């Protein structure tokens, strides 16, 4: 009898406290997961595009995005809300550079511009050349993008294909806005020269 009395007296508060703790915990997990999916899943396409352009092949792009997803989940508590796309792309980019370091020990980073092409700049563009550029063959344009050294390729992809602002690109690549600007200017100059040097349309020249 005595023990029954004790149980009824002590159990309800203890039990309620435990249940509410469990509930809190489960909910936190649950809502964290939901917030993570809401933040990250819509930007997987952007993540893929960046990774694919950086790694230049499907298999490695998939590895990089998967690694990035895991890291994103791991560091999600540090995400303050706001620009989820820029946040995810930053992680993708970092995942790519760690991957690159392991694989190639950073060879590609040092890729110089193809100076042969680049040195024919400053010749001034005639108006018909603008017209030619407008009709550039898409396969040649893709080759032009691929011929850009990494630091230039990534800012061009983020700006031209993902439509990010200079400020967002600067945050993702960890460089000043002025550097974003100068890299874009140089990359575009290189692309123009590349297209004109290759006859703009495939098969020409």
């Amino acid at each position, binding site marked *: 009898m005595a023990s029954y009395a004790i149980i009824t007296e002590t159990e309800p508060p203890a039990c309620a406290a435990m249940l509410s703790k469990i509930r809190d915990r*489960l909910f936190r997990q649950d809502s964290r997961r939901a917030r993570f999916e809401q933040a990250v899943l*819509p930007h997987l396409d*952007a993540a*893929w595009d960046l990774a694919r352009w950086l790694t230049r092949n499907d298999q490695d792009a998939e590895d990089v995005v998967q690694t990035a997803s895991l890291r994103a989940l791991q560091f999600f508590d540090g995400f303050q809300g706001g620009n989820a*796309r820029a946040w995810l792309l930053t992680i993708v980019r970092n995942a790519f550079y760690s991957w690159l370091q392991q694989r190639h020990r950073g060879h590609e980073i040092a890729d110089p511009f193809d100076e042969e092409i680049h040195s024919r700049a400053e010749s001034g563009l005639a108006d018909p050349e603008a017209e030619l550029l407008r*009709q550039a063959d898409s396969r040649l344009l893709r080759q032009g993008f691929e011929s850009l050294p990494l630091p230039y390729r990534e800012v061009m992809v983020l700006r031209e294909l993902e439509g990010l602002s200079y400020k967002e690109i600067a945050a993702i690549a960890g460089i000043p806005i002025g550097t974003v*600007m100068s890299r874009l200017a140089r990359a575009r100059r290189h*692309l123009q020269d590349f*297209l004109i040097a290759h006859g703009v349309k495939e098969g020409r020249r």
Partner: protein
Amino acid sequence: MSCPHTEQELTAYLDGELELTSALTFERHLEECTDCARALAAQRALREAIGAAGLRYRPTPAQTRRLRRAATAEPAAPGWPSWRGLQAIAAIAGLLLVAVASWSLGRVWPPRSAPDLAEQVVSSHVRSLLAGHPADVASTDQHTVKPWFTGKLDYSPTVVDLAEKGFPLAGGRLDYLGNHPVAALIYRADRHVINLFTWPAAYTPDGSGPEPAASTRQGFHILHWTQGGMTWWAVSDASEDRLRELARRLGAAN
């Protein structure tokens, strides 16, 4: 270039990233300097070619499935669970029961404040992307999409195909925003999905005008304006420039 304005300035001008005063100075300069004007024309042409070339990579459906799995799966526990593991599973099953019970409570309490419209618009956009099929009626034909809404809404949304202007129509969807059933039109731009919502301005009077106002949420660009008695919301991860262009094209088409 043999003038004080650098190629970088030109590039920033092209991207709409110069501050207003610098942009105005540069525009005045463009009228005088043929070198800069020509270089700008070439850069514009290059950008158009890039826009038309569809360079953005998209994962295949199989790749998307794998990426989503990686982004949503908990790290797998290796091996067959031990006795302790089974105990843990039993405990978890018990907890789940409790969770489900309290979840139903948590659904209604505490009450959450109603999210504002911009947030609803972005959420709807995100949901449509997560579902993988943003359109209830998938068609590039405005004469299929527009009649589809008949009987589902008490207004008739304007539907125009802008494929020739770089914004192909991809379909339409019925959505529920601002406590009203509304039309969502899906457009594409360089492989980005744009959700365009439109409903009578009287549903949600907010004093917005014909000049599109831009904002950003969760990395998505939002454009909002009111014109011809209809209110418009465009949301996408395409650039703000592209959204503004879409708004311009719609304005011209209406």
